């Protein structure tokens, strides 16, 4: 122990629970799971994440959560979410220290209620009121168009908000992460990108995805230190075209290779205090992970998803690393406030975890 000032950090993205700096993975030579974190100083390169979580432990947490959620007629759901995340974060280690999730059930509940009242109700109203009132066709068409537009705006609002919340509630060595991007700016990036993707029949997608990722990364901080991302979507275009061309001959499996290439690229273009991330994800490994998860879930009739989640977290940690010397001595605490409204809103649109 004693080391100190030297550390780095990648975000725990166990199973997608964390949003944040995930997306890629990899590292130099991914040996195997037991890779011990470089204890200390010595190694100027190869800082790794180690995931200690066990499927049975998370499964136990999940079962108790289910019980309490049923007993409380679903109110406990938000506290259950916190318990699961606390466990997964607490089992993720970097440079000998674990991550901590600081979220609270109360704030998740309030965030969900706020998201429902502010966005859920207007959206539902736009969708159904014209039908109930038996409005004329132009009115119905106009309102459903408005609903689509609203969703297009709300998705980036939710994503930025959820990232802001999740990073602000995540810490390592007592220093909190934060997301300082302006939501309005992300809405602009997202909406313009989506429209361009439609206009170009999807071929803009690599640029779109990279720009979104860049926005998220470049506004992420650990204490006072900033993450950087220097990727450009055109670098992914070739991989993307391969995937498109090979979709039919490979029955769609080509997309695993594109997803892996994207993750590698995203991580390799991410740096922190001069050190750079690396990822060892490959299409084959990703395919194995996803097929394995699918099997676990199907064979357990869905109840075994904690095992799938642990596999995903282990995979993510094993395949990402940070290379280069890092001087963390200059980093100071800098926390930003955040509410859980975006988190609640996101739950209206997408799952927390995509195990598919």
């Amino acid at each position, binding site marked *: 122990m004693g080391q100190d000032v030297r550390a780095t950090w990648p975000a725990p993205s166990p199973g997608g629970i964390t949003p944040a700096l995930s997306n890629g993975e990899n590292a130099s030579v991914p040996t195997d799971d037991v890779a011990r974190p470089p204890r200390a100083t010595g190694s100027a390169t190869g800082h790794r994440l180690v995931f200690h979580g066990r499927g049975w432990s998370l499964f136990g947490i999940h079962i108790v959560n289910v019980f309490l959620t049923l007993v409380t007629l679903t109110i406990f759901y938000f506290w259950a979410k916190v318990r699961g995340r606390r466990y997964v974060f607490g089992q993720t280690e970097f440079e000998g220290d674990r991550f901590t999730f600081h979220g609270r059930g109360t704030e998740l509940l309030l965030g969900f209620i706020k998201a429902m009242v502010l966005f859920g109700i207007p959206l539902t109203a736009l969708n159904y009121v014209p039908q109930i009132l038996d409005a004329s066709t132009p009115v119905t068409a106009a309102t459903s168009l408005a609903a689509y537009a609203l969703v297009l705006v709300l998705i980036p609002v939710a994503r930025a908000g959820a990232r802001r919340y999740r990073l602000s509630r995540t810490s390592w*060595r007592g220093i909190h992460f934060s997301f300082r991007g302006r939501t309005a700016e992300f809405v602009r990036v997202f909406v313009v990108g989506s429209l361009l993707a439609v206009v170009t029949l999807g071929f803009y997608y690599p640029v779109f995805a990279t720009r979104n990722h860049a926005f998220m990364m470049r506004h992420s901080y650990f204490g006072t230190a900033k993450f950087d991302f220097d990727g450009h979507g055109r670098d992914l275009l070739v991989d993307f075209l391969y995937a498109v061309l090979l979709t039919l001959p490979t029955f769609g499996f080509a997309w695993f290779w594109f997803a892996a290439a994207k993750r590698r690229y995203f991580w390799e273009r991410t740096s922190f205090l001069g050190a750079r991330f690396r990822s060892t994800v490959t299409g084959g490994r990703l395919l194995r992970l996803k097929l394995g998860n699918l099997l676990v879930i199907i064979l357990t009739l869905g109840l075994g998803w904690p095992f799938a989640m642990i596999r995903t977290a282990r995979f993510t940690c094993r395949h990402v690393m940070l290379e280069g010397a890092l001087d963390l001595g200059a980093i*100071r605490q800098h926390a930003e406030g955040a509410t859980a409204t975006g988190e609640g809103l996101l739950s209206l649109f997408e799952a*927390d975890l995509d195990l598919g």
Partner: protein
Amino acid sequence: MSWQGHYLDGQSAQRRRATVQVAPTGLEITTDDGTTRRWPFSQIRQTQGQYAGEPVRLERGGELSEALIMPDVAFLTAVRAAATARRGRFHNPRWRLLRTPLTLAAGLAAIGLVAVLYRWGIPAAAGVATRFVPVAWEARLGDEVFARLVEPEHRCQNPERQRAIDSILARLTQAQGVGLYRLRVAVVDWPDANALALPGGQIVILKGLLEMTDSPEMLAGVLAHEVQHIVKRHTTRAIIQHASTGLMVAAIAGDVSGIVTFALEGARVVGALNYSRRAEEEADVEGMRLLLQARVDPAGMIAFFEQTLHPRERAEPNGMWRYLSTHPLSRERVAALRALARGAGPPVKLLPDRDWKDVKRICAA
């Protein structure tokens, strides 16, 4: 006795080696730069270290707190021994032994709870909730569905024959109070042999079904069944039950969705079918009672259901169908109806001076 760990000041990312003494009122933390800090037990909270292999993490202060990381779980036992009145703030490592049995118990209890909620809880709650739904809302919903479902040109409109059919329904509604419901029946020119009861009071008889009836008593049997769906508010109940099972699925699926929810959705559909069969059984039983009250010959209803027996069912009842069908097996239905009809009084003939074959031509131009 002193313990070794790390101290984080909550201001920088440096961790300092720390030696911790457990004193009667709190912890004394000496870091490797020679500073000593005193943490009273009352200000400490434990945020990690509840699981095997997880270091103990103690925090002090607000959101951006100082923290102490202790790798040895035995430290907790020492702290709990010293903290006496405040020991509840610290996890008891012995609880870990209980975790597996407690988890198993919670798992079994959850399974039991799902079963109880599904079998009794949700239907009972839906029954109560249904009472608070105004009949006017049901009527509105029913009218809306009817208007969308049936185009006017498909409605069979022959006032004189319609009167004959209306009189059958009237005979039934006079025998049993129907509260606020305004019951009415429409025949629709569709070939399927089916009938539906829309919430609020509209009964729809499809031409295919009408043609299968050999007597007004047979139609009366169908109407009596449909009337029960309306009066017992089965549609409203089904909507509420569907929402409730949705919440239950959300509780089980927890933090994920996608494929897990999809799998559970299957279970939910099978569950909904069961609720539907229960509603059909209730409509059968209550419908038969209504027929007897109205002194309609129950043989008509029984004969009608016998006619609908699928050839396969006439042979052997198939176990699988029992669970995948919205309606009870016709064989069992017929047997149950027969039992109910035993001891019926002398019936009063329906439409004694009408030719039923003529009434059935209500859809003819």
